[in-house]
């Protein structure tokens, strides 16, 4: 690691928020580190301060708020989510998106929030959060605001977060418990890989939501399709919403094609 930074590990929430307010864009929050440290090593990010969120009490584990929503904190890892009994029982789509994310060692560190907070288009968790109508709870010294996930991503690697704010919680509404869904991820090998494209489907409140990763500048939600929608129509609706590119990983033609294949197969598998 070449770049020099100051490491801070606040133990209290208020302290963390003070630090973020004070240092703003000069600081980066450290959760799992599996994204941030890779970027620092590559010289892509050069923060003056690293604020470790993991030592703040209550910032770990899979929680539940008063409204019965599933709550993910800054230090909630992918494996925490996969191993949570409530997730397995009531939120299978979260498990489907998480289980093929990177490798086991990475999932012991990588966090749900970390997976989405940099608006990477190839986020595996974002499709689930979009389909399930999750909310981003954004917090700063000044207070709290809630942004539905479908409004959280604004552009390539851009979110609505301001420099003095952190994404403190992700809340998956209790109403999404029991939602049927699944995720298909195209990879170059059977082993751990970034998604070349990924498609999630959820059937919620009699409507079908699709969310697609790696096929647009941000993860994309196509929501509220009629539950009985025909496969061709569904493919067309999704195709309209995505804009895949050709890059080192794949051509845009095959990406678009595989999205359509996944849409059809997910409809077949989840809906029947």
């Amino acid at each position, binding site marked *: *690691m*070449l*770049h*020099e*930074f*100051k*490491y801070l*590990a606040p133990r209290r929430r208020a302290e963390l928020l003070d630090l973020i307010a004070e240092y703003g864009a000069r600081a980066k929050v*450290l959760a*799992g*580190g*599996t994204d941030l*440290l*890779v970027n*620092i*090593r*590559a010289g892509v990010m050069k923060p003056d301060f*690293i604020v*470790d969120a*993991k030592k703040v009490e209550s910032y770990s584990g899979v929680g539940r708020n008063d409204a019965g929503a599933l709550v993910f904190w800054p230090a909630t890892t992918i*494996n925490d989510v996969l191993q949570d009994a409530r997730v397995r029982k009531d939120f299978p789509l979260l498990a489907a998106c998480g289980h093929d994310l*990177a*490798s*086991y*060692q*990475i999932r*012991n*560190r990588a966090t749900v929030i970390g997976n989405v907070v940099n608006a990477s288009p190839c986020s595996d968790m974002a499709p689930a959060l979009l389909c399930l109508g999750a909310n981003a709870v954004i917090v700063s010294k000044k207070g709290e605001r809630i942004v539905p996930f479908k409004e959280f991503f604004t552009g390539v690697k851009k979110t609505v977060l301001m420099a003095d704010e952190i994404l403190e919680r992700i809340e998956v509404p209790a109403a999404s418990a029991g939602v049927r869904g699944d995720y298909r991820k195209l990879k170059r090998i059977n*082993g*751990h890989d970034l998604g070349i494209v990924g498609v999630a489907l959820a059937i919620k409140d009699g409507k079908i939501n699709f969310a697609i990763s790696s096929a647009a500048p941000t993860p994309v939600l196509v929501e509220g399709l009629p539950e009985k929608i025909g496969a061709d129509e569904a493919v067309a609706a999704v195709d309209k919403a995505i804009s895949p590119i050709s890059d080192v990983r794949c051509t845009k033609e095959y990406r678009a094609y595989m999205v359509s294949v996944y849409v059809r197969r997910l409809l077949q598998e989840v809906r029947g």
Partner: protein
Amino acid sequence: MKVRLTVNGGTYERDVEENSTLLRFLREDLGFTGTKEGCGAGECGACTVFMNGKTINSCMVLAVEADGASIETIEGEAKGGSLSAIQEAFDKHHAVQCGFCTSGMIMSVKELLQRNAKPTVDEIKEGIEGNFCRCTGYEQIVEAVLDVSGQKIVKGDINHA
């Protein structure tokens, strides 16, 4: 910054640069060179160690994050001069060739067996998915894990045509 942690049951306290990784700290500051660096970017698993009971890629953890932590590395695996059951199985089944991935691989196998005493072949492969090996082709590693977990191995030997 000061860091105090335990490695394989022994306590260590050192001054460390904030931008030093746990991997570098273990290898260079403490001399535990059994754990290796293969990529420095969390892809290959050669740097896998236990931190507070969970396997992690130590190249993706800062040494300062490990303050107060309990670390286990390959050096703590053999006790009292005897190989552990996993090491013995690896030796028996030729799961080692150049040896560079071995330390991390054994840590991942150990972790797998702690949470799943009798993993299927697919579960074994998923368990070591994050540990690259360029030499063995993984099959003999899978066989070693089947053996040490008391399960049957199918097609273990070379045939004579």
